[in-house]
């Protein structure tokens, strides 16, 4: 114990005309069970109250604290200093718009994503308050939840080469979202409708398959699997589109 830790932190306040992007160093004494949540709050309260960063649940559940820790996107709240070297560099997540220092605007990015993929169950049915709930197989419910666990931290997007190069790339989190609704029988969209959303270079065909996304996902979502199956299914859909209708068949995920 009792290490002195050095933090090199990216500083820039776009709302301050005098501010220019630069790195600033802080030192702090390490304490027992220290996490980056504790470090950053102590730095703000004891050393520099202008420091900006985001935490919310501080328990690895809400996704607010994504940042780049020594080059790797991850959640700051469950990064323990004892797993880090004495010198640590903290950068904001790329791709998302910078609010200031380590704080970025993930909200606008994700809201845009919901609209593009129509992140909801599309159905013509109307809810009947007097009826019993529609039944669902428990194994299927669990499968849907497995993909529903994404906390929208943005780490996969920040780690993605395609997302860094093209602004309109949907990213693994969006493709995962689409896969979640494809599994869900309550969503009545057709294969063609899904294809229109993800069967493009901004969608599944823009993905280079290097899987940085799965590597950094703090929730261990099976992104590799999801992307693979989605690519396969959309490739079938593409082929089906150019085949005469009597040769088409619905391929299930």
């Amino acid at each position, binding site marked *: 114990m009792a290490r002195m830790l050095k933090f090199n932190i990216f500083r820039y306040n776009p*709302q301050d005309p005098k501010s220019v992007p630069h790195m600033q160093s802080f030192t702090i004494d390490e304490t027992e069970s220290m996490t980056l949540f504790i470090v950053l709050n102590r730095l703000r309260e004891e050393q520099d*109250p*202008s420091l900006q960063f985001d935490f919310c649940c501080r*328990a690895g559940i809400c996704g607010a604290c994504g940042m780049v820790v020594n080059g790797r996107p991850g959640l700051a709240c469950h990064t323990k200093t004892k797993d880090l070297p004495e010198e640590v560099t903290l950068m904001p997540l790329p791709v998302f718009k910078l609010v200031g220092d380590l704080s970025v605007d*993930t909200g606008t990015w994700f809201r845009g994503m*919901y609209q593009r993929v129509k992140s909801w169950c599309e159905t013509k049915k109307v809810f009947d308050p007097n*009826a019993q709930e529609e039944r669902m197989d428990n194994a299927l*419910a669990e499968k849907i939840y497995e993909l529903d666990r994404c906390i*929208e931290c943005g780490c996969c997007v920040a780690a993605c080469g395609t997302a860094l190069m093209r602004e309109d790339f949907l990213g693994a989190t969006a493709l995962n979202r689409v896969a979640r609704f494809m599994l869900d029988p309550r969503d009545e969209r057709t294969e063609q409708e899904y294809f229109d959303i993800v069967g493009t270079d901004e969608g599944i065909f823009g993905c280079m398959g290097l899987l940085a996304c799965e590597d950094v996902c703090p929730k261990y979502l099976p992104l590799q699997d999801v992307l693979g199956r989605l690519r396969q299914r959309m490739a079938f859909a593409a082929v089906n589109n150019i085949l005469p209708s009597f040769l088409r068949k619905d391929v299930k995920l």
Partner: protein
Amino acid sequence: MQIIQTDLLCIGAGLAGERVAIEAAENGFSVICLSLVPARRSHSSAAQGGMQAALGNSAMGEGDSPDVHFADTVKGSDWGADQECARIFVDTAPIAMRQMAFWGVPWNRVVPGEQTYYKGGKPFTAYEKPENEGLIHSRSFGGTAKWRTCYTSDGTGHAVLYTLDNRAAQMGVQVHDKTEAIALIHDGETCMGAIVRDLKTGELKAYLSRATLIATGGYGRIYRESTNAVICDGGGMIAALDTGVVPFGNPEAIQFHPTGIVPTDILVTEGCRGDGGTLLDVNQYRFMPDYEPEKAELASRDVVSRRMTEHMRKGLGVKSPYGDHLWLDIRHLGEKHITTKLREVQEICESFLGVDPVHQLIPVRPTQHYSMGGVRTNKDGAAYGLKGLFSAGEAACWDMHGFNRLGGNSLAETIVAGMWVGGKVVEFLAGTDTTFNTAAIREAYEKQAARIQALIKGQNGNENVYAVRNAMFDTIMKGAGIFRNGTDLTESVTKLQEILQRARKVGLRSNGLGANQELALALKIEGMVKLAQCVCYAALQRTESRGAHTREDFPERNDRDWLNRTLATWANASDDLPTLNYEAATKVFEIPPGERGYGGGKIIPMDNPPQATPAGKKA
């Protein structure tokens, strides 16, 4: 001044705020939700356990009904609940749960046949009926006669909030995230919206609305040790209290949980103790049997929390850079048990502490967990004091929880009250027009702009906002912690009066430009200290023990004098104490006051006990 106008302004985009928003949007009204963070990061997403509704689909839930749920809720509240609201709640909960299923929540479902479940760490089997296959399943939660907690694995809040936010997006509800309401616009009679600070740019804006909803969640962050997210700092309650006319219902009703981990106060489940975990002190001595020979670690949440605090006050806590704590020991349960049955606990310990609970002790302390009090509303969710103002969810004192809420009832409250209050907001919007008083808008705006300038320029003084906050933390925990007494409370009330003076003299140390977070805290510190004072002052006056409010010097529940609800208002902004009034806990009694059936304790009965009013024949 930028002005944004809408029919309904929801301050808060957690489950309660969004459920109300959806109701209004479905009925054709324009809605904007404000939130400090993207809607899906709201604290609702952190709830893992589940939400109660008497569906009765599962074997262990068989025979459940809204009436049984009602009895559990009223008993749980220690008869502090408004029984009309509790009735609305239990009757609507099953519909609300099914609607969430319709919108896409992947609830766990009934699997037919013989199933193995656990109770008190021991396995048993139950037979799930084939005819119930695929219906919503339920699990067990403390204080309930039947298993009725609907759940999605260990991520119920997450799954429900994501589904609700999807629905909100589909219905065109706008969420303005990274925005903070810092004051209500009102003329003493009608609420016309809010003054809002943009947390991306620092810009101040006015939002005008015909109806305004406060759904800002709990205010646990007036305590240093809380399981709540760091954004649960009472912003909505502060804005309401600031009007001078909207009362804070039951501020003293605060729930604690025995096992928050140290340093970050993340919750580890009661299951640890249920399965045989023990609590140890600085000498690694197991102290609970000395206090509670019968139940030891398995006494109820409030009892264990109280004993732990008592023991630490004797100097037997473990010193740490983060304050005193005790140890939770589950090592003797063995690797196999811990890595299977308590997997989530092991993950929390490893991810946040770097502790392996198979071989090491877990540092824990009792931690603030839930705020039963809030913006006092009538049964339609309309706030007392201002027309056009509503409240729902943990921010509200609608008041189905009284002095102790049951696990699983708060998450359910958010969507059930959201649905019900949403309907009332729609009726209100359909029937009422507002005239926007430009003088009131300008005054409200200018007042906030001036506050910001004064803080930046240090015109009020140069108190350090974090030092003031820390002083508040120490004081509220000493007086209004897990157990309370007249001496400590009196001391805390006096101290908080001094701290309030200091809060009024805060000056920034940074330049305050842009999304500056020091400024955000400086803007609300005076309000936070006022909330803390409401808690301590109301707790001092309430000379009885009811639910989570435990007075060592008044151990009885006193129905003769205290079967009522505290209403705290802050009449003049410059006052240093709130004004307290009281109203009857409930107008209607379906169940007259009686024993809870757990927790023990003596009751001083009412002089004229009320008659039961059967459900359906409500006054």
